[in-house]
Structures are given as structure tokens and as C-alpha cells.
């Protein structure tokens, strides 16, 4: 039923570069610094906006318990008192080798995804940059209340070879548009259709049974 209004479209591109013929094969070698790779793709159908650009990692257990708690919420909520002495839950990413406190500390911050992407549209052989908004991708409450950005210039050392080979992961970029019920999800539609028609069939069967043996006890 969701298909009525908006056509959900998703495009997934793998850029891990494990395969030899991949354009990003060079980037799978961790020794290579400052690696760039370019993926070219065509869109057959029109993606009705707004289109969202996601990155995806597989085999990456974000919900690992020790990983999930390895952060200092006070630091993240902008309490500068905790900048000098990060919470112990951040260990082993509390202090760097020179015993300076790490801000933001912990595995979560340490594993921040830092590949950078530029999206071009090729118009008549020329690359035209497609602007990425980057706004409103976090929950408003998370962004404004729970994790207030401290007035510190964020770390800006963009690498673009986020390592995934060590845990056998894959890196993907996803283009997706959304409807009123979110991104593309076949499960809900299918489930509703199957269960709905099942119920319909059952009710018809029961109606027939009922019409045929109206009061079976009476006989």
C-alpha cells in the first residue's frame, strides 16, 4: 500500500575494493595513504527527492556492549570539566601515548567513520558537484540536547580509507529516497498483504462453513 504514493528507490554501491576488478581495489591495501577511488553509476529511473545518501558497513557490531558504552556522555554533552579527565569507560581510549586526555574519548569516537564522499553528476562529460546537505540527519533531541557540540573545533583529519578488512566487513554507499513511512522496506507491505489475504480467505471459508452447518447441534 505504501507503493501507491511514492516509489521507494534504493541504490547500493559496494566500494570495499576487495575484488581485484573493483575500482577501489587500491584502497583495500591499508598501507596506501590518502587513497581515492571513483565509482561510476547510472540511474535508470528518476529518484524523487529528497534523496538520502547513507554509508553502510557490514559485519560491524555497533551494538557490541563494551563498544556501546565506551564513551563519555558528559564530554559529549559539552561538559568541559570532563575534558581533562575522561571517564574510565573510555578505556583504552582515555589518554593518548603522551598522556593527554582524548576528547571525545572512547571506542565510539575512535572508530568514527571518516571516509569522505563527493558526489558528481556528469553532464556532457563535465563533473558537476551534487550538493550534500548534511543537516537533520540526527534526531533533533540528540543533536541539540543529549550531545551538544562543545565549542571546540572538531578534529579535521579526513582520511578516506576507513579500515574494514580486519573484521571482514564491507563498505557501501546507499542512495535512497523516503516516503511517509520511511525508507524502502518490503517487509511491512508483504506482511500486511499476506496476513490480510489470509484473513480474507479464512473468513470466506468460515462463512461457507457457517452457511452450510448453521446449527450443527440441532441435528
Amino acid at each position, binding site marked *: 500500500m505504501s507503493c501507491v504514493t511514492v516509489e521507494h528507490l534504493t541504490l547500493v554501491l559496494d566500494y570495499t575494493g576487495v575484488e581485484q576488478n573493483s575500482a577501489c581495489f587500491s584502497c583495500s591495501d591499508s598501507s596506501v595513504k590518502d587513497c581515492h577511488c571513483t565509482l561510476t553509476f547510472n540511474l535508470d529511473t528518476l529518484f524523487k527527492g529528497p534523496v538520502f545518501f547513507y554509508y553502510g558497513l557490514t559485519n560491524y557490531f555497533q551494538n557490541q*556492549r563494551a563498544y556501546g558504552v565506551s564513551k563519555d556522555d558528559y564530554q559529549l554533552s559539552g561538559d568541559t570539566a570532563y575534558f581533562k579527565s575522561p571517564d574510565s569507560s573510555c578505556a583504552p581510549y582515555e589518554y593518548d601515548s603522551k598522556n593527554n586526555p582524548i576528547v571525545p574519548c572512547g571506542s565510539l569516537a575512535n572508530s568514527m567513520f571518516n571516509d569522505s564522499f563527493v558526489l558528481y553528476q556528469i553532464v556532457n562529460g563535465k563533473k558537476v558537484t551534487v550538493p550534500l546537505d548534511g543537516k537533520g540527519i*540526527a534526531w533533533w*533531541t*540528540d543533536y541539540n540536547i*543529549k550531545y551538544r557540540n562543545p565549542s571546540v573545533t572538531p578534529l579535521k583529519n579526513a582520511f578516506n580509507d576507513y579500515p574494514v578488512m580486519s573484521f571482514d566487513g564491507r563498505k557501501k554507499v546507499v542512495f535512497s529516497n*523516503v516516503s511517509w513511512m520511511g525508507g524502502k*522496506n518490503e517487509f*511491512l507491505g508483504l506482511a500486511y498483504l499476506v496476513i490480510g489475504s489470509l484473513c480474507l480467505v479464512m473468513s470466506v471459508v468460515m462463512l461457507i462453513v457457517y452457511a452450510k452447518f448453521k*446449527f450443527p447441534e440441532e441435528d
Partner: protein
Amino acid sequence: MFTDFLSFMVLFNFIIPVSMYVTVEMQKFLGSFFITWDKDFYDNEIKEGALVNTSDLNEELGQVEYVFTDKTGTLTQNNMEFIECCIDGFQYKHQDASSELDGFCVTDGPVSKLHQKAGREKEELFLRALCLCHTVQVKESTEQCPDQVDGMSNEVDCLGIDGALSHPQERRGFIASSPDEIALVKGAMRYGFTFLGLESKSMKILNRSNVVEKYELLHVLNFDPVRRRMSVIVRASSGDTLLFCKGADSSIFPRVRKEEVDRIRLHVERNATDGYRTLCVAYKLLSAEEYTQADAELREARLALQDREEKLMAVYNQVETGMSLIGATAVEDRLQEEAAETMEALQGAGMKVWVLTGDKMETAKSTCYACRLFQKNTELLELTVRTLDDKDRAREDKLHELLLEYHKKAVQDAPPVKAGVTRSWSSASQDYGFIVDGASLSMILNSSPESSNSRYKNLFLQICQNCTAVLCCRMAPLQKAQIVKMVKNSKGSPITLSIGDGANDVSMILEAHVGIGIKGKEGRQAVRNSDYALPKLKHLKKLLLAHGHLYYVRIAHLVQYFFYKNLCFILPQFLYQFFCGYSQQPLYDAAYLTMYNICFTSMPILAYSLLEQHICIEVLLDNATLYREIAKNAMLRWRPFLYWTVLGLFHGLLFFFGVWYLFHNPALQDNGQVFGNWSYGTIVFTVLVFTVTLKLALDTRHWTWINHFVIWGSLAFYVFFSFFWGGIIWPFLRQQRLYFVFANMLSSVSAWLVIILLILLSLLPEILLVVFRKPRGPHSRQSLPVFYLLLSSSPTVTIHFPIPMSSSSLKYSLVSMCSTAAKMLSCLLPWHVLLMTAAPPSTKRTCMKFNAELQHYQTEREREREREGVRGGAGQQCPDGVLFA
């Protein structure tokens, strides 16, 4: 590694429903109040209701297989009425004895005799004996009629004496530990001998010629149930020392002369067969030497420091010998209200009723017939001293032979009864009643220490178990307990219930699983030692068939439901471990983990387990057979357990993987924002809380405002709490995991859709089960009787009920139309439930209500028919409750 283990322990310990114990305790405690509060148990005579001494046995009341009942005061009223006496072989029957009214206070005139044959001297001796041989006290009071005196075990019987007596005290009360004694004293009074009281060791009697006689009371040889007699030693004003003894015939006959016995035995036996309690009266003239010796021995025994009881007993036995029999009395003890109906209902419910009494066999037997424990076609198997006495052989051999014979009859030749299925009404198999007396029983239980002993016991037990009713007469109190113990420890350890009113029942009340005391006339010992105390025997029916049945169903459902709801609570968390690198990451927030069993899902099940009536009480009382459906712990067996476990597994899997499929694309909102693991857990938890609560709502047949309040209140509280918990930065929390998770979840349409889908899908099989389940039992026999009544019986019915019926038949045709509509609806249930979730419970309620009305209508009709006398041959309850004209 060990910390991992501990973490998993913490994570999964919720599968053990610790809170269940608390809820069960609360259910039992609060549930016992419902018995105390039951207005049907309130008795206007004693101005008291039921008393619950333990809250632990409510559900056992629904599992009773054996009922051991006392006779006197339990099956009968213990309201004794002097019927007749027999003096020296001649019968004396009072004119007004047959009239029902308390015809005591009628005459003071000459004894009305049927055959004036006994000598006057004998008569007077007998009446004096009645007046002297007792422990009755006179309570003289100016009040109209004091209902009860203080003091634990005494009862005042109030009685007006007609003006023929020229005494200042017009009204007097007698106080005695046993109502028999009062009846006897009153009986003597009716024949002209009035006991005036005991004053400083002298008993005063007003004799026929209105002369006061004085007797010095020298000794009282107290009554005890083992000796079954009591005596007094008095000195008359003439100087003669007399011993008067009264007691059960079996204990008196061996102590008097043979030729006297023969004259009186006939009367005693006839009286006993009529259901009267008989006592024999004997006397002995003590010579001065005899008395001195007896006096010395009695004093010595009374002062003995060791084995006083035994020594006293020995002296008593020694003194009470060589007496001469003067007569016998017959006292009637009327049946309790609805005793027969109650016993019939208990038997209909599949319980075996055993009567354990200290009375004579004939008396007890006639009571059993009166209570319909024995029916006309019941074949009685008798194992008593009478049947055992055989000139040729020793008792042991005869016992062995009889046991084998009865065993063959009742056990081997009986049609095999399938285990668990007790005999149905329609089956034509022979009913057996078993009668055993104390002497034979002690032979079976504790006689020879040989190996055959246990064999006898087994044979005996098997015979008893195959009989519909067992009567044990001439029992000592300890023997009663012995019997209860034997049955209690028999194969399958059946639940036993003892009911009694007197101190002699205490041992069996304590021995049985459930002990019930009747607030009768023999004091409070039974009540104080019981688990439940009832004012009347008739209340036992409701206690077992309604309260017991309901509490069993409630507690069974409670326990199963607890395991189920914890299984589908923890299963998703378990499954989640496979998706988080086995890192013991909890799926639900700590607050949810803690509050699930305490706040979100505890109240509905508690309310259910207190208020549920899956079948209306009236129906339960009218159809005793329903009790059999839950017999042998039917609801806590493998099948229901598997059902609940499978349901829990199904729900758990559905919750987890349903949401898992949804999270294949975690962008659940129209702004493209993604949802994380806490959102995942919260969605699962929301589905969980709603499903388990609605599942209970589907199971609830009896809705009260409390059910509505706690069920919808719990859900509302969950929503409110989640908003509140996620809406604030709590200063005491280090991680604000759920910050705005719930609100964000609700702003996602997909989340809503998946929650609704999963809840419906979880409950769908349940609904289908309700629809497809073969109509079984009386609660689903909706349409048949009404249609039957409407279609078939219109001519006769309209004749019987001219106007009121037509209006009510209109009402019932309306009801039947409604039920048809409800049926149509329920056939379309799966479909329409998608549109309207609230419908199924209400539909059920309609059926329930309708059924109750139907039942009422049925009973009304039945009553009407009885009144009309149209009741046909099918006087017995019909198997399926259909009435045959």
C-alpha cells in the same frame, strides 16, 4: 570469561518468574477474603459467615477427590430430639413425637404409653437414671431465650416449661457438652422427672408427684469416645449408693446380664435402622464395701501422676461391670439442610464421599440412605463385626475371605474405568457402597504384624476406591485420622478433605489436605483446627464446586501465564545475543527489564486470578460434573504447559524477527533519520507488553470494572511511563539511553504499522483457536436449549405460564437473535479483528451473560415443572443438561 557468564546470568535471570511467587502469595491471601466475604456462606442462625484460617489451600479445594465427613453435627444437625424410649423391653413413644414442632414443652402429665406394661418402679428408675446420669448444667435465666452462652464449648438450649410447674423459674436452659444429654434430660422431663440442677454436690430432681428428690453426686465417670459410655455414682436420700451408666449398646451389652439384653436389643436395632441415635441405660446398686473400694480406686487413679488416663480407664472398666440394663433411648438427629443435595453434588463432581462416624452402623447407614450417599440400587458390601462373626472360623480367616470376595466384586469384575475419566451418569454399572466398622478396620490396619497385613490394607483400599460411598462406623477419633492418612498416602496421592464439627473430628481434619470445620454445636475445636470453617454443611457445595473450581483455574492460569510472559520477554533478548557479538548487550533498557514484571504486566494477571469466572458460579453449582473437568490437576499437565510454552516461543520469535525484518532498513521516519538498538528494543518491548496484556484480555471471560481498570490502566501506564522516562535527562543516569526513543518511535509510521501487525499476528492463533474449538461443556451450549425451548415446547409452556412467560420468551428470542449475530460476528472474527481489536472480549461477554440467563431460565423451568408434577422419568440429572419433557 567468568564475568561473561555472570553477565548472561543477569541478563537471562528474568526467565525465572521470581515475581510469580509474590503474585501467587498475594492472590492466595486476597483470594481467601472472597471466601470470607461470600454472603451465601452467611448463616442467620449463628450470625456468622465462613472463616478462613489459611490462605494456602484455595486451589486445593478444586482438586478434592475424597471427602471424609463426620456424621453427627455435619451430615446431621446435632439438634437432638427425644423420640422414644424402651423400658424393660416395653416401648414408650411420645404422642407428639411425630409432630415436627418443638413439642417438648407440651406436657407435664402422665407418661403416654403405648403399652403400659413396664412396672412403675422400673419406669421411675429409668427416668431417674436419665435425670442423673449426665453432666448437664441448668442455666436459670429470666431472659427470654439466650442464644448462646459464653464459653467455648457449651450451648444453651432454651426451653419453656408449661405452667403446670409451680416453680418461680419459668424458663430454664440446659448446658451440656453434648446435645444428646440435653435431649435425654428433656425427654425425662417430658415424662415427669425434671432435673433441677446441681447444688453443692447434690442433684435435685422434681419427680412426678412434684416432690423434690435429692441425690448426692459422688463420682462422675466421664464420657470418652473410646469407652463410649459414662456413669455417675450417686447416693440417694435413702442411703443407697447407685451407679447409673449410659452408653452405646455395644459398650453396655457386654456389661449387663444376657437375658436383659435380648429384651432390649430388638428395640435398639429397630431404632437404629430408623436412623435414631440409641443409648442404653444400665444401673447397679453398689454395696457399701463395693463403693468404698471403687471410691478409693477412683481417687487413687485421679491423683496418679503417671498414666492417669490409663489408670482411670482401668478403674472405670472395673466399676462398670455387672450392671443391669433398664432401658434404651432413641434420639433423633435430623439431617442438615440440603445435606442430600450437597452429597449428591459432591458425588456428581466425582468426589468419593466417606462417612466416618462413631455411631452405630444401622444409624449411620440410614443417614447415608437419607443423604442419598447410598441409593436404592447400591449394593452394600459389609465388613463389620457382624459379618465377620462366624462360628466355625477365626475372624482373621473370615476377614481374608470377605476382602477377597468384595475385591473380586468391586474391583476385578467392575467394568474398566479409563484413568482420569470417572464414571458418567449414564453408565449402568453397579454402584457399590462399602461399610466397615472400627473393629474390622483395626484388624485390617494394625492387627497382625505379618506380611498379610499390608496385603489386607491394599485390598481394602482398592475396594474402597471402587465404591461410590464408604461408611466407616464405630470409629474412634484416631481411626478416622488413620483412614484419612491411608487414603492420602495411597497411589496417586489424592487430595483429601475432611469435614467435621466436633472435637473427635480434629484428628482427621488435621490429617487431611483440606480440613473443614462446621461451626456446629459441639464447640470450636474443629473450627479452630480447620483450614476453612463453614456455618453449614450445605456451604461445602459452593466452597468446592464454585470457589475451589475457580481458584484452581485461576491459579493454574496464573502460573502458566507467568511462565509464558517471561518466556516471550526473555526470548528476544536471548536471540539478540546472536546479533550483538554475544556481548551481553541487553535488548531492553534497564528500566523496562525491572518494571516489566513489577508494573507493566503484574496487575492484570493479579486481577484476573482474583476475579475470573470462566464459567458463571450458578452454572458451576448447577452442573457438578464440571468439577471433573479439572480433576487430577488437569490444567497443569503436559498439554497446557506445552501450549503455553509454544505460545511463548512463537510470540518471542515473532516479536524479535518481526522487528528485525523491519530494521533491515533502519530509516523509519519520513526524514530519513535512522533508528538504533534502543529503538529496536523499545519496539519489541511495546509489542510485548501489549500482546501479553491483550492475550490476558482475550482469556478473561468475566469482566469487572477492576479488570478494565488494570488492563487498560497498565497499558496506559506503560505508554505514560515510556514518555516520561525518555522525556527527561535524568540526572542520576550516566547514559540517557532512552532519551526521546519512545517519542521518536511513535512519530514513525512504520513503527506503528509493525507494532499493530505483530500484536495482531501474535493473537491471531488465539482467536482462531477460540473460533474453531469444538463447543464443549455447558458454557458453549448456547443455541441448543433456547431453540429447543422455543420450537418444541410452546404449547405446554404457554399453558403453564400464561402472561409472564410470553414476555420472557420474547426476551429470550431476542437473546437468541443476539447470539446468532454474535456467532456470525465471531465467524468473521479474524477479519474484523483487523478492523476492531476490542471486539472479541465483548462478544464473549455477551455469550457469557446469555449463558447465565439461559441457565437461570432452565432452572426456573425445571422448578416449575417439578411443581406441576410433569417431571418425567428422567429425574436424574441428564448428561448434557437438556430437559426431557
